[in-house]
């Protein structure tokens, strides 16, 4: 019995150490407790210039879908990096979230437009269907399938750690 207790006293800290060591040194991007790849839901939305109604088929084969709004301050922070990505040749489509089209267009005119076009989701219906909780959020989509869903500002560190490995693995944007 004494041996048993001594063993337990020895094992508990070892288990704890191994557990926290694994937890703290894991540098793999952790997309959430049960992130599964999913298909982009079916939608039909105006773009913010109200020129055309877009559906799922109008999305390119490979793109970044960025959820943004003129009222969103972090989107303003993220904006510069998105402009750089655009210049490097990455295709970014906007999903304008709960925003007035005039505000959205003014924002793009003022700061510059990194998007191929921006869907106007004033009610947030497509956003809800894709599990968006706020802005900014960014999706990496290949052939209608979402490979990455990132909530928060995309910057160089996030790009290198989260998006770039998946892009490389799936041989995208070549």
């Amino acid at each position, binding site marked *: 019995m004494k041996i048993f207790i001594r063993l337990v006293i020895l094992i508990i800290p070892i288990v704890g150490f191994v557990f926290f060591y694994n937890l703290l040194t894991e540098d793999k991007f952790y997309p959430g*407790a049960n992130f599964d790849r*999913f298909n982009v839901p079916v939608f039909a939305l105006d773009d913010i210039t109200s020129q055309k109604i877009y559906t799922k088929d109008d999305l390119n084969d490979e793109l970044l879908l960025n959820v943004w709004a003129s009222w969103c301050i972090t989107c303003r922070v993220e904006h510069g990096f998105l402009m750089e990505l655009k210049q490097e040749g990455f295709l970014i489509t906007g999903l304008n979230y709960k925003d007035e089209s005039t505000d959205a267009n003014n924002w793009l005119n003022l700061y510059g437009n990194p998007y191929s076009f921006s869907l106007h989701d004033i009610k947030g*219906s497509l*956003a809800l*269907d*894709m599990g*968006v909780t706020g802005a900014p959020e960014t999706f990496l989509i290949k052939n209608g399938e979402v490979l990455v869903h990132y909530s928060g500002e995309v910057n160089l560190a996030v790009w290198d750690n989260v998006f770039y490995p998946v892009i490389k693995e799936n041989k995208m944007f070549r």
Partner: protein
Amino acid sequence: MKKIVLLNLLFSICFIQGNEVYKFHSLEDEKRFYDLIQEIRCPKCTSGSIASSNAPVSEDLKNKIAELINEGYSDKEIKEYAKARFGNEVLYNPEVNSSTYLLWYGPFIFLFMILTGFFFRRKSQ
């Protein structure tokens, strides 16, 4: 005349500001709705249910749940809908499956181990 216009304006403001009114086919559906929104966590403010939250995403989710109930979805299907989009943590009661066995049965196993240890100690003395 001016007063009437002003009064009208005030009332219309009340109407616009008023909370969303959910309409259901039956009283049972309405009850299901209020039970469901207690069981689903707000994705934006994780320490409250969507019933207690008026974050935009919670309002959207409540509207969607009302819509799904009216379309005849079952409680299980609605929970699946929320779970597929906002992750397992969106449900207040974790489901019983292979990844949560330890969570549900762990305390009983622990209790069993302690009781066994306790009785063995008694015997050896």
